[in-house]
Protein backbone atom coordinates (compact mmCIF):
# COMPACT_ATOMS: atom_id res chain seq x y z
CA UNK A 1 0.00 0.00 0.00
CA UNK A 2 1.54 3.35 -1.01
CA UNK A 3 2.11 5.89 1.76
CA UNK A 4 3.69 8.84 0.00
CA UNK A 5 4.95 11.75 2.11
CA UNK A 6 5.53 15.42 1.44
CA UNK A 7 6.95 18.30 3.40
CA UNK A 8 4.83 21.29 4.33
CA UNK A 9 5.39 24.38 2.20
CA UNK A 10 7.46 26.74 4.36
CA UNK A 11 6.73 29.61 2.01
CA UNK A 12 3.49 30.10 3.92
CA UNK A 13 3.12 31.24 7.50
CA UNK A 14 2.07 29.04 9.18
CA UNK A 15 3.51 26.31 6.92
CA UNK A 16 0.92 24.78 4.58
CA UNK A 17 0.59 21.01 4.01
CA UNK A 18 0.95 20.13 0.35
CA UNK A 19 1.04 17.09 -1.92
CA UNK A 20 1.70 16.49 -5.58
CA UNK A 21 -1.27 15.76 -7.79
CA UNK A 22 -1.94 14.82 -11.37
CA UNK A 23 -4.96 16.33 -13.10
CA UNK A 24 -6.29 14.68 -16.22
CA UNK A 25 -9.10 15.88 -18.43
CA UNK A 26 -11.96 13.35 -18.45
CA UNK A 27 -11.35 12.60 -22.14
CA UNK A 28 -7.73 11.87 -21.12
CA UNK A 29 -6.30 14.20 -23.81
CA UNK A 30 -4.68 16.67 -21.40
CA UNK A 31 -2.80 16.11 -18.19
CA UNK A 32 -0.80 18.29 -15.84
CA UNK A 33 1.13 17.71 -12.63
CA UNK A 34 1.17 20.30 -9.88
CA UNK A 35 1.47 20.93 -6.20
CA UNK A 36 -1.81 21.07 -4.32
CA UNK A 37 -2.58 22.36 -0.83
CA UNK A 38 -4.74 20.54 1.71
CA UNK A 39 -7.68 22.69 2.73
CA UNK A 40 -9.93 20.62 4.96
CA UNK A 41 -11.96 23.73 5.75
CA UNK A 42 -13.27 23.85 2.20
CA UNK A 43 -16.22 21.79 1.06
CA UNK A 44 -14.87 21.50 -2.47
CA UNK A 45 -11.73 21.62 -4.55
CA UNK A 46 -10.69 24.70 -6.49
CA UNK A 47 -8.06 25.22 -9.17
CA UNK A 48 -6.55 28.38 -10.69
CA UNK A 49 -8.19 29.78 -13.80
CA UNK A 50 -4.82 29.47 -15.52
CA UNK A 51 -5.04 25.67 -15.26
CA UNK A 52 -8.61 25.79 -16.59
CA UNK A 53 -7.26 27.62 -19.61
CA UNK A 54 -4.25 25.32 -20.06
CA UNK A 55 -6.36 22.16 -19.88
CA UNK A 56 -9.13 23.66 -22.04
CA UNK A 57 -11.88 22.63 -19.65
CA UNK A 58 -14.69 24.84 -20.93
CA UNK A 59 -16.68 21.93 -22.41
CA UNK A 60 -16.53 19.91 -19.22
CA UNK A 61 -19.10 21.73 -17.07
CA UNK A 62 -20.78 19.24 -14.75
CA UNK A 63 -23.13 21.54 -12.86
CA UNK A 64 -23.28 24.67 -10.78
CA UNK A 65 -22.61 25.36 -7.13
CA UNK A 66 -23.55 28.16 -4.80
CA UNK A 67 -20.12 29.24 -3.65
CA UNK A 68 -19.09 31.56 -0.85
CA UNK A 69 -16.31 32.34 1.56
CA UNK A 70 -17.23 32.63 5.22
CA UNK A 71 -19.33 35.73 5.58
CA UNK A 72 -19.03 36.56 1.89
CA UNK A 73 -21.72 36.81 -0.75
CA UNK A 74 -23.03 33.67 -2.43
CA UNK A 75 -22.19 33.32 -6.10
CA UNK A 76 -23.38 30.65 -8.51
CA UNK A 77 -20.38 29.23 -10.32
CA UNK A 78 -19.87 26.42 -12.83
CA UNK A 79 -18.12 23.27 -11.68
CA UNK A 80 -15.93 21.32 -14.10
CA UNK A 81 -15.36 17.57 -14.04
CA UNK A 82 -11.76 16.46 -13.94
CA UNK A 83 -9.82 13.32 -13.04
CA UNK A 84 -7.46 13.74 -10.13
CA UNK A 85 -5.00 11.56 -8.26
CA UNK A 86 -2.43 12.18 -5.61
CA UNK A 87 0.98 11.16 -6.90
CA UNK A 88 1.92 7.67 -5.75
CA UNK A 89 -1.57 6.27 -6.15
CA UNK A 90 -2.77 4.28 -9.11
CA UNK A 91 -6.36 5.36 -9.56
CA UNK A 92 -7.75 8.66 -10.70
CA UNK A 93 -11.04 9.77 -9.17
CA UNK A 94 -13.52 12.21 -10.60
CA UNK A 95 -13.61 15.61 -8.94
CA UNK A 96 -15.80 18.60 -9.73
CA UNK A 97 -13.74 21.73 -9.39
CA UNK A 98 -14.34 25.46 -9.18
CA UNK A 99 -11.92 27.34 -11.48
CA UNK A 100 -10.98 30.68 -9.97
CA UNK A 101 -9.12 33.74 -11.15
CA UNK A 102 -8.38 34.76 -7.55
CA UNK A 103 -6.41 31.57 -6.90
CA UNK A 104 -2.81 30.70 -7.71
CA UNK A 105 -2.62 27.21 -6.28
CA UNK A 106 -4.78 24.10 -6.24
CA UNK A 107 -6.76 23.76 -3.00
CA UNK A 108 -7.95 20.23 -2.24
CA UNK A 109 -11.24 20.36 -0.34
CA UNK A 110 -12.96 17.61 1.60
CA UNK A 111 -14.56 16.23 -1.58
CA UNK A 112 -11.10 14.91 -2.48
CA UNK A 113 -9.43 14.63 0.93
CA UNK A 114 -12.15 12.35 2.30
CA UNK A 115 -11.06 9.65 -0.16
CA UNK A 116 -7.81 9.17 1.76
CA UNK A 117 -6.33 8.65 5.20
CA UNK A 118 -4.16 11.68 5.79
CA UNK A 119 -1.76 12.31 8.65
CA UNK A 120 -0.76 15.91 9.22
CA UNK A 121 2.39 15.80 11.32
CA UNK A 122 2.75 19.42 12.28
CA UNK A 123 5.71 18.70 14.53
CA UNK A 124 7.74 17.28 11.66
CA UNK A 125 5.99 19.45 9.04
CA UNK A 126 5.21 16.33 7.06
CA UNK A 127 2.10 14.97 5.33
CA UNK A 128 1.50 11.24 4.88
CA UNK A 129 -1.28 9.97 2.63
CA UNK A 130 -2.62 6.43 2.39
CA UNK A 131 -5.70 4.70 1.06
CA UNK A 132 -6.41 1.82 3.45
Amino acid at each position, binding site marked *: MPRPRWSYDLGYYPPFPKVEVELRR*VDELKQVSSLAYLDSGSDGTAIPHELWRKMELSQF*IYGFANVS*SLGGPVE*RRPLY*SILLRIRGFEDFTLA*TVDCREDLHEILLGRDVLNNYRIILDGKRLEVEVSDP
Partner: protein
Amino acid sequence: MEYEWGHLLSESSPLRIAEQEMEAYWRMRDKLLEAYKGRWVVVARGEVVAVGDSAEEAAKLAYSKVGYRPVYANKVGEEEKVMRRIYRNAPATLEL
Protein backbone atom coordinates in the same frame (compact mmCIF):
# COMPACT_ATOMS: atom_id res chain seq x y z
CA MET B 1 -26.98 35.52 -13.58
CA GLU B 2 -23.66 37.19 -14.31
CA TYR B 3 -20.41 35.29 -14.51
CA GLU B 4 -16.89 36.61 -14.57
CA TRP B 5 -16.63 35.00 -18.02
CA GLY B 6 -19.80 36.71 -19.20
CA HIS B 7 -18.35 37.28 -22.66
CA LEU B 8 -18.59 33.53 -23.20
CA LEU B 9 -22.36 33.49 -22.67
CA SER B 10 -23.57 33.19 -26.25
CA GLU B 11 -26.44 30.77 -26.91
CA SER B 12 -23.99 28.02 -27.91
CA SER B 13 -21.47 28.66 -25.17
CA PRO B 14 -20.72 25.82 -22.76
CA LEU B 15 -22.06 27.91 -19.87
CA ARG B 16 -25.33 28.64 -21.66
CA ILE B 17 -25.74 24.98 -22.65
CA ALA B 18 -25.15 23.91 -19.04
CA GLU B 19 -27.70 26.46 -17.86
CA GLN B 20 -30.26 25.07 -20.30
CA GLU B 21 -29.60 21.57 -18.94
CA MET B 22 -30.08 22.93 -15.42
CA GLU B 23 -33.40 24.49 -16.44
CA ALA B 24 -34.46 21.13 -17.90
CA TYR B 25 -33.50 19.38 -14.64
CA TRP B 26 -35.66 21.71 -12.59
CA ARG B 27 -38.60 21.38 -15.02
CA MET B 28 -38.42 17.60 -14.48
CA ARG B 29 -37.63 17.80 -10.80
CA ASP B 30 -40.98 16.53 -9.43
CA LYS B 31 -40.76 13.41 -11.59
CA LEU B 32 -37.09 12.96 -10.73
CA LEU B 33 -37.97 13.09 -7.06
CA GLU B 34 -40.47 10.27 -7.51
CA ALA B 35 -38.14 8.07 -9.52
CA TYR B 36 -34.59 8.84 -8.38
CA LYS B 37 -34.62 10.37 -4.90
CA GLY B 38 -31.15 10.13 -3.36
CA ARG B 39 -29.42 9.26 -6.65
CA TRP B 40 -27.23 11.33 -8.95
CA VAL B 41 -28.91 12.32 -12.20
CA VAL B 42 -27.20 13.79 -15.26
CA VAL B 43 -29.17 15.82 -17.79
CA ALA B 44 -27.95 16.44 -21.34
CA ARG B 45 -29.86 17.62 -24.41
CA GLY B 46 -32.82 18.27 -22.12
CA GLU B 47 -33.26 14.71 -20.86
CA VAL B 48 -31.94 12.34 -18.25
CA VAL B 49 -28.99 10.47 -19.74
CA ALA B 50 -27.49 8.84 -16.66
CA VAL B 51 -28.39 7.87 -13.12
CA GLY B 52 -25.89 6.66 -10.54
CA ASP B 53 -25.25 6.21 -6.86
CA SER B 54 -22.29 8.61 -6.98
CA ALA B 55 -21.35 11.67 -9.02
CA GLU B 56 -18.47 9.68 -10.52
CA GLU B 57 -20.62 6.74 -11.58
CA ALA B 58 -23.22 9.01 -13.15
CA ALA B 59 -20.56 11.08 -14.94
CA LYS B 60 -18.88 8.03 -16.50
CA LEU B 61 -22.20 6.74 -17.74
CA ALA B 62 -23.24 10.15 -19.07
CA TYR B 63 -20.00 10.78 -20.96
CA SER B 64 -20.14 7.29 -22.46
CA LYS B 65 -23.61 8.07 -23.79
CA VAL B 66 -23.40 11.68 -24.96
CA GLY B 67 -19.68 12.33 -25.27
CA TYR B 68 -17.75 15.15 -23.67
CA ARG B 69 -20.11 18.10 -23.59
CA PRO B 70 -21.57 20.38 -20.90
CA VAL B 71 -24.09 18.58 -18.72
CA TYR B 72 -25.97 19.29 -15.53
CA ALA B 73 -25.74 16.84 -12.64
CA ASN B 74 -27.26 16.90 -9.22
CA LYS B 75 -28.31 14.59 -6.39
CA VAL B 76 -32.08 14.42 -6.43
CA GLY B 77 -33.64 15.69 -3.23
CA GLU B 78 -30.33 16.94 -1.81
CA GLU B 79 -29.55 19.63 -4.35
CA GLU B 80 -28.89 22.47 -1.96
CA LYS B 81 -26.61 20.34 0.19
CA VAL B 82 -24.41 18.89 -2.52
CA MET B 83 -24.25 21.99 -4.70
CA ARG B 84 -23.17 24.37 -1.98
CA ARG B 85 -19.52 25.17 -1.40
CA ILE B 86 -18.09 27.24 1.37
CA TYR B 87 -14.41 28.10 1.53
CA ARG B 88 -13.53 28.44 5.19
CA ASN B 89 -10.04 29.61 4.21
CA ALA B 90 -10.99 32.83 2.47
CA PRO B 91 -7.95 34.52 0.92
CA ALA B 92 -6.72 36.96 3.53
CA THR B 93 -5.25 40.36 2.93
CA LEU B 94 -2.89 41.54 5.63
CA GLU B 95 -1.87 45.16 5.58
CA LEU B 96 0.99 46.15 7.86
